[in-house]
């Protein structure tokens, strides 16, 4: 396939899933004629009709609640949350129902729901439009949480997310929506696996979503200074691909986790704990975290200073190597 944007990779993935399975329906605000505020569902209502691409009332609890009902009736709803900061009204349905219904019913009921969330900052938006709230869902037992970072994964992972009978929170790095990439012939491994995007020997950078690109750039810059950084795209936050993470960190002995979310109880905390528990003697330095500060997402004129960038990643690498 020719190069396409990450956003369009999702569009084509949704289209493929909808063609394959008539039970796949999309629900969300403005996803019909408008094609969503990021145009990810553009053209789909025209082709699949209003019964399958549903412009819902403006109520996130209602969207998730009715999606649950449709799933109980045998549908496979793919829900679009317009922006990260608007998922909270649906929080109850996600954590108390979507995540738990299968366990509650002893497996009689499945919840093949995909919750698409464009997330993260860096696009100069007003408040509530730049949140990274993945840790809430990753902490919630019963959900799978995945994040794509490029067009290829976007295209294939959305299809994998739709195919699994488990509920998936699917994060899309909104500031990378317009980045182009090749889409290959099939997915790189099953949902739940990480991917080493760049091999290295000195320090492992663990990232996902928007920070993958930043880490790759940092690794590039580091190389020019003679440092060899390995970059792992986690892709799945719950479950984490422990094996891939441990393998890399055992090799390098050092790890820096990078994300936009606040560090306190962010993914970096779990990864640090996990790596320390399972690879204690391999560590030459503590797992370090480079992330958003522990403040509400600032006004956009400050976001460059809030968000990790190449320099802050390299600073983290320096601190790791200083041990």
């Amino acid at each position, binding site marked *: 396939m020719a190069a396409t944007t990450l956003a369009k990779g999702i569009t084509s993935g949704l289209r493929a899933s909808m063609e394959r399975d008539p039970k796949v329906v999309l629900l969300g605000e403005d996803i019909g004629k408008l094609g969503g505020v990021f145009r990810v569902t553009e053209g789909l209502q025209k082709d699949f009709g209003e019964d399958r691409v549903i412009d819902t009332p403006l109520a996130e609890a209602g969207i998730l*609640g009715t999606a649950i009902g449709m799933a109980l009736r045998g*549908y496979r709803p793919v829900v679009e949350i317009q922006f990260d900061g608007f998922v909270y009204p649906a929080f109850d349905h996600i954590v108390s129902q979507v995540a738990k219904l299968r366990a509650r019913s002893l*497996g009689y009921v499945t919840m093949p729901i995909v919750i698409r969330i464009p997330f993260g900052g860096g696009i100069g938006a007003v408040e509530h439009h730049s949140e990274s709230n993945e840790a809430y869902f990753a902490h919630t037992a019963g959900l799978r949480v995945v994040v794509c970072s490029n067009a290829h994964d976007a295209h294939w992972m959305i299809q994998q997310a739709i195919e699994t009978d488990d509920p998936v929170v699917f994060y899309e790095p909104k500031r990378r929506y317009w980045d182009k990439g090749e889409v290959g012939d099939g997915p790189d491994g099953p949902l739940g696996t990480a991917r080493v995007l760049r091999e290295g020997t000195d320090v492992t950078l663990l990232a996902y979503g928007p920070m993958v690109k930043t880490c790759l750039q940092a690794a590039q810059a580091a190389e020019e200074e003679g440092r060899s950084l390995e970059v792992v795209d986690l892709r799945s936050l719950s479950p984490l691909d422990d094996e891939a993470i441990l393998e890399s960190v055992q090799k390098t002995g050092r790890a820096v986790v990078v994300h936009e979310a606040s560090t306190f109880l962010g993914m970096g905390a779990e990864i640090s704990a996990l790596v320390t528990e399972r690879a204690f003697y391999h560590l030459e330095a503590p797992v370090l975290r480079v992330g958003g500060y522990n403040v509400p997402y600032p006004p956009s004129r400050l976001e460059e200073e809030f968000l990790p960038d190449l320099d802050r990643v390299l600073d983290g690498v320096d601190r790791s190597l200083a041990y």
Partner: protein
Amino acid sequence: MSDNDVAPLETAFGVDHHVSRAEAPERPAQDGGPDMVQLLNPEGERVAHPEHDAVVDGLSDEELRGFYRDLVLIRRFDTEATALQRQGELGLWASLLGQEAAQVGSGRALRPQDYAFPTYREHGVAWCRGVDPVNLLGMFRGVNHGGWDPNEKNFHLYTIIIGAQTLHATGYAMGVQRDGNVGTGDEERDTAVIAYFGDGATSQGDVSEALVFAGVNNSPVVFFCQNNQWAISEPNEKQTRAPLWHRARGFGFPGIRVDGNDVLAVYAVTKAALDAARSGQGPTFIEAFTYRMGAHTTSDDPSKYRVSAEVEVWKHRDPIERFRRWLTTTGRADPDFFDAVDGESDELGASVRQRCLSMPDPGGTEMFDHVFAERHPVMERERAEFETYHASFEAAR
């Protein structure tokens, strides 16, 4: 304000007089008011109703006796469950005492293909759907969180999060529409969904959102609110200023209040609403005006917040008594029938008790078994660790 927008407002209790906006709601005697559909009064006398007479007159004596049997058996089941809780066999029980007619009347109006979304108190509806009553005890005994297959009898799991199920019901109904199972005229295909919830639940945003979605989509769902006057310790007037059946109109579909202690009226009104839904006429909101005769649950102590005089008033409106009286005076049932039901009811009590006591405890590893449909490394690792830990622990003993 102009008159055209301020028609007489009512208090939550349906006493149909003009209330100035300045008056704060107060606690009147709970009277359903003149708009309440009633076919059988508390004395067991049939009240004529032009719209609903035909339906109930069309019920055979056997069907009518069936209603009675349901009412008695489900009350007996409920009593047994309460006793089991008192004896420590259940952790908790939410009694339906007083609400039997609301549940049996609506439950019997459902067709097999219809789907019901209960709260935690719809034991009578479960009974009508054919769910094994022992299954209802599992959650309260702590051996599972429900544990029946919802699709076997088209009866969803109990939902404890107040109001959430109204959205699930609406979404389910949206699925029914997409399946083309509305308005075909095929009695076995056209499908309605019914969502049960309480008076307190109407305050939850979820319930209003369900009314929005159902209205906009014209979905085949009936919102069945059992107004038992109390949400734990809070009376109706803490939840709403208007009668609940008024709620629906502002969302674009009809609301109706029915005497929830009158099994015939509930049956007729619910059947009409379900028929409307199945035939593509969209949602209806039914307020079944009833009373929670017991405590909220076995953990509750209503003496803290309500006066027994109120309970006494409602005792005279008992749903079973009036129906029995009517069956008797109209010669539809005789003492033998009533004796037979009593006998059956004792048997049910005994069998429920015995089967409750023999419900097996789940094994520890079961908590890992049903979380995900597909392989999940954390489940696998923790399950293994759990087993190793318990094995080593046993060994060490």
